């Protein structure tokens, strides 16, 4: 693959710029046809900004996340990270998955140090940095435990640490708090917001929860139903630190919430309608993607 170096020797401080242009992607169906998932998707992630992507469930957000992380190639279009073509997984883009992807056979400490060991940078300072991060998220007393012995919330925190330790330029989080109980989820969101405030790295956070989006985002991308593209790109200029309680009293937050809800509702209704009208899948596939 061609390595394009348009911004030579990009400084690490401003790294994490991702551009997605004219992206089309579909799943191959038996019979050779393609089922469109992403159609003409365009957006950019700016360095140091936390972008939240929100859309109806099943709209293709996870597919897009996988493409950005490099686990697959788009059918058409460009994905560039700091000026270079994305061509496979790379340690500059780390992904935290919807489902737990901790290694069950490694202890908390070994899981956290995995990336350091694989890149052969596991020295004293790196170890103590990992240990400090684990301490910060309350896992200091569980260093020798296997993931099976950790609670769901602890597993998610360990996963965050495991990714953070590698200091990725771009942090991709695909509904990382899904499946946690409401209380743990709120705590995790506030915790994550705090960690982000300190680190200020580029992040793409995928969710289907509007309040989560408002709590975390510098910018919200509202996505359409399948085939997916960007329906709206909204700046969230609500002062930090935010809490769920203050968000309910904030004028701008309520305005954004209403606008996003209406868009998501319309998209959900559209995809429900489309499903109801097409009795078989083939008919749905012939539906041409909107321009």
């Amino acid at each position: 693959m061609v390595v394009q170096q348009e911004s030579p020797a990009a400084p690490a401080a401003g790294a994490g710029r991702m551009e997605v242009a004219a992206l089309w992607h579909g799943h191959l169906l038996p019979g050779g046809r393609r089922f469109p998932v992403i159609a003409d998707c365009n957006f950019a992630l700016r360095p140091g900004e936390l972008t939240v992507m929100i859309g109806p469930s099943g709209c293709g957000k996870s597919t897009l996340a996988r493409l950005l992380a490099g686990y697959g190639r788009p059918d058409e279009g460009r994905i560039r990270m700091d000026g270079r073509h994305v061509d496979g997984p790379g340690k500059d883009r780390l992904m935290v998955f919807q489902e737990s992807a901790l290694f069950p056979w490694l202890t908390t400490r070994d899981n956290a140090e995995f990336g350091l060991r694989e890149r052969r940078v596991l020295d004293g300072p790196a170890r103590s940095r990992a240990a400090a991060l684990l301490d910060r998220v309350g896992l200091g007393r569980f260093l020798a435990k296997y993931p099976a012995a950790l609670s769901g919330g602890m597993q998610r925190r360990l996963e965050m640490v495991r990714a953070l330790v590698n200091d990725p330029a771009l942090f991709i989080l695909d509904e990382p708090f899904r499946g946690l109980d409401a209380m743990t989820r709120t705590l995790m969101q506030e915790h994550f917001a705090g960690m982000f405030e300190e680190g200020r790295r580029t992040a793409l956070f995928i969710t289907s929860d509007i309040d989560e989006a408002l709590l975390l985002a510098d910018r919200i991308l509202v996505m359409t139903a399948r085939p997916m593209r960007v329906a709206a790109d909204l700046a969230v200029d609500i002062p930090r630190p935010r809490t769920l309680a203050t968000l309910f009293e904030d004028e701008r937050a309520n305005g954004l919430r209403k606008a996003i809800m209406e868009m998501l509702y319309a998209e959900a209704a559209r995809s429900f309608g489309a499903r109801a009208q097409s009795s078989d899948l083939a008919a749905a596939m012939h539906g041409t993607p909107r321009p």
Partner: protein
Amino acid sequence: MSGALSAMGPRRARPARRAGPSQAGRRAATSIAVFLLLGELIARAPALFGVEVPVLGVLPAPSGVVAEALRELSDPAYWQSWYLSFLRVAGGFLAALALGVPLGLLLATRRSFRNVVFPVFEVLRPIPPIAWVPAAIIFWPTQELSIVFVIFLGAFYTITFSTYHGARQVDPALVQSARSMGSGQWRVLWRVVLPAAMPGIVTGAAIGMGITWEVVVAAELISGGSGGSGGGLGHFMWDAYLANNHERIVVAMISIGLAGYLSSTLLRRAGRLLAPWQPLK
């Protein structure tokens, strides 16, 4: 295999169950005692009651078996048989492990390799190891090698297949996250696929170990019988049969059972060391 208890410290669950075994143990002891007593009565029926029990009457008395066992325990030849059989099982089993695990991993992760090798594997797999005995004797230069080879086959298919199966079921998210944290292809195999397949490998090894003991006895009976040079527990039993020593046949049977039990216990211990993250069963 229940994962329900996995969340708590595995070893701590024991004390609650401690009340059980004493009662279950008493029942087990009673059952075995009744079984032995019945055997003794049947064997002594002609002397005690003047009638021979049909069919079962030819079985040796448990007391006779114990007496024979005590004699054998002080006989170096008996221990030599143990030693030889264990050596063969260990040789065949370790060879099966050394070849089967890498083969299973490659079959699971390299598609073109799988397409080429798997058909041959599947054609050979249904052939029972014992059916290989004559071919093995012809093929290998020494009798010892042919026995070890047949034992190897007994464990090899099972270990390869369960490694393959375990490795195929690795969560792709684990492979992907390792890749994105900088692991190369071979590192992924070593640090993700192998440990993920480890529980399957241990299970396969335990089943394979059981098969090796079935095979070693049969192989020794068949090939070790000639000339009396073969040795091993299977041959020990065959000798007892030729000498019409019923007590010794039973001692041999029990010895082989015990050998299988000991080796699978050893294996389970090793398995726990190799997969310590797995909840205790």
